[in-house]
């Protein structure tokens, strides 16, 4: 009898924990969306930020976030995928492999501010890229590489052996088998992972603070010449991203509508991350259906 009562109490405590968790997270998300969505308008998304006056928007920051994300992905995806292929296909068990594995693990668990400091030291000062989109993207590459490597390795490992053996039996070389048989087969899971990591990169702030900078020059959205200093495409201009903007506005903003701007930006950020997530899940599901023929 006693153990039954304990059982009941314990189970209710566990359920209470789960309910508390759900309540905290849902109310948080709800708060951000409810507070923020009311301040999102077409004007908010399409006007530049104003340093002193009310009514500033987030046009440049939003653009910067996407631009840094795209550059980061262009750098990360090839290196990460190749690195993952190495670990899944070429790595022989031994000291070198376990060292590379340790390196991936270390990269994955470094605090992002440490990555930012490294970026400041090497990309901003040593290579002289200054606070720029490019420095920021390089720092985020360091931050995002381990994720892509893992996703790729997992994708390759989940394939059945027959695919590889079939390719090799046809007399293809190892690399050719990877390129034409294994990579296409693993592509859906890799793509899902890449999109998920894009959400993480999109919201990253600490690593960008010291690499992409806290300001944006006056961007002229009619000037698409990448060499012009005020062009949105210029790689070597400083670029404050959306998440850095939220932090900067909250810690040092002197405009009268700080709260509105912060809430609106946070809502845009969260919505983008949610969209990345939904998108990744949808793609995973669609491709899975295609492959399993259901």
């Amino acid at each position, binding site marked *: 009898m006693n*153990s039954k009562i*304990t*059982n009941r109490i*314990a*189970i209710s405590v*566990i359920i209470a*924990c*789960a309910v*508390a*968790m759900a309540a*905290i997270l849902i109310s948080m*998300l709800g*708060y*951000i969306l409810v*507070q923020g969505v009311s301040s999102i308008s077409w004007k908010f998304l399409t006007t530049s930020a104003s340093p002193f006056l009310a009514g500033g928007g987030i046009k440049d920051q939003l653009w910067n976030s996407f631009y840094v994300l795209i550059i980061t992905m262009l750098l990360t995806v090839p*290196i*990460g995928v*190749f*690195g993952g*292929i*190495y670990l899944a296909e*070429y*790595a022989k068990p031994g000291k070198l492999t376990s*060292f*590379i594995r340790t*390196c991936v*693990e*270390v*990269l994955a*668990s*470094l*605090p992002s*501010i*440490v990555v930012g*400091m*490294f970026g400041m*030291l*090497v990309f901003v*000062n040593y290579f002289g890229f200054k606070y720029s989109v490019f420095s920021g993207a390089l720092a985020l590459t*360091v931050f995002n590489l381990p994720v892509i490597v893992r996703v790729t390795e997992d994708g390759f490992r989940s394939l059945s052996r027959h695919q590889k053996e079939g390719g090799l039996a046809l*007399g293809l*070389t190892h*690399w050719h088998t990877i390129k034409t048989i294994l990579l296409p087969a693993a592509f859906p899971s890799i793509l899902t992972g890449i999109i998920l990591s894009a*959400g993480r990169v*999109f*919201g990253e*702030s*600490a690593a960008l*603070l*010291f690499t992409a900078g*806290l300001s944006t020059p006056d961007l002229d959205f009619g000037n698409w010449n990448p060499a012009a200093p005020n062009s949105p495409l210029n790689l070597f201009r400083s670029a404050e991203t959306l998440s850095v903007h*939220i*932090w900067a506005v*909250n810690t040092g903003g002197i405009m009268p509508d700080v709260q509105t701007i912060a*809430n609106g930006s*946070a809502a845009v950020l*969260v919505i983008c*991350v949610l969209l*990345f*997530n939904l998108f990744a899940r949808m793609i995973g599901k669609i491709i899975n259906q295609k492959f399993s023929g259901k």
Partner: protein
Amino acid sequence: MKIGKMVTDAAPASGGKSKLINEKGLFSQLTDRTSESRGKLLIYGSALLMIVAVTAITLFLSIQGLRAFVVDHLNFWTFITGTEWFPDRAENPSFGAFPFIFGSMAVTFLAALIATPIAIGTAIFMAEIAKKWGAKVMQPVIEILVGIPSVVYGLIGLSIVVPFMRQHFGGSGFNLITGAIVVGIMILPTVASIAADSIRAVPDSLRQASYAIGATKWQTIWRVVIPAAGSSLLTAIILGMSRAFGEALAVQMVIGNARNIPASILDPSATLTTIITLSMGHTTTGSVLNDALWSLGLILLLISYVFIVIIRFLGRRGEKR
């Protein structure tokens, strides 16, 4: 007419198989031996880059972090145990980093203390009690929440937790425990989802054996499942702690940024990450303060390595079982 045309059209294709292979480049691809070495080059290069990145980070941060002691002749011992951080005082500037080290530790442990019971409880709920519901609804939602940017957590802290603390505990509301709560909530989804995975990995035969000798659900969970999941549950918590330890902006927004050791958890405080975030932009390269900040960065890096070593150790112990 139509049939005739089709036949004439189709004729060349069926007639020249080798031509088709040639056109698609299959033949040349199959015999291309250099493609193999080119691919290998790409792959080994990428793998090598991972080593280069880690080595470069460690090396550069070490060199820059040791400058304060080697070039500026700060005493290492007084640096980590000193409690006075007055770098810009005109006479006798002092660099005591202990308040920040203490702050980082305090936030990390308090956050773990707040997050662990709720996260583990949720994990047990998802993996043991409401399996279907847990896997179909809770797990995806929690995984999405892992991806919510940390500044958003900071903003939430600023607009909900800080006013709440101000109302109920007095003071400004910016204090150590507020920081710990914000970070604790931030690591909740991470810890819960990893913990749930490790509970699911416990083989069902153990549970069945436990039920077979008449154990209740709770006895099974407490005596069988949790000990069996043991070290991986601990890994989940440590991973959460390492994330809490490295978090910068969310903490900085709510912790109050004082430079002395807090007397209680309701006092404003600072951590390694927050002081770096705040001061780094205002210093010039090569100044003593700048070098001291890099030393703080180095300490941050070293403690992250400690976390990594612990996680690896736990992982290895889990594998051996």
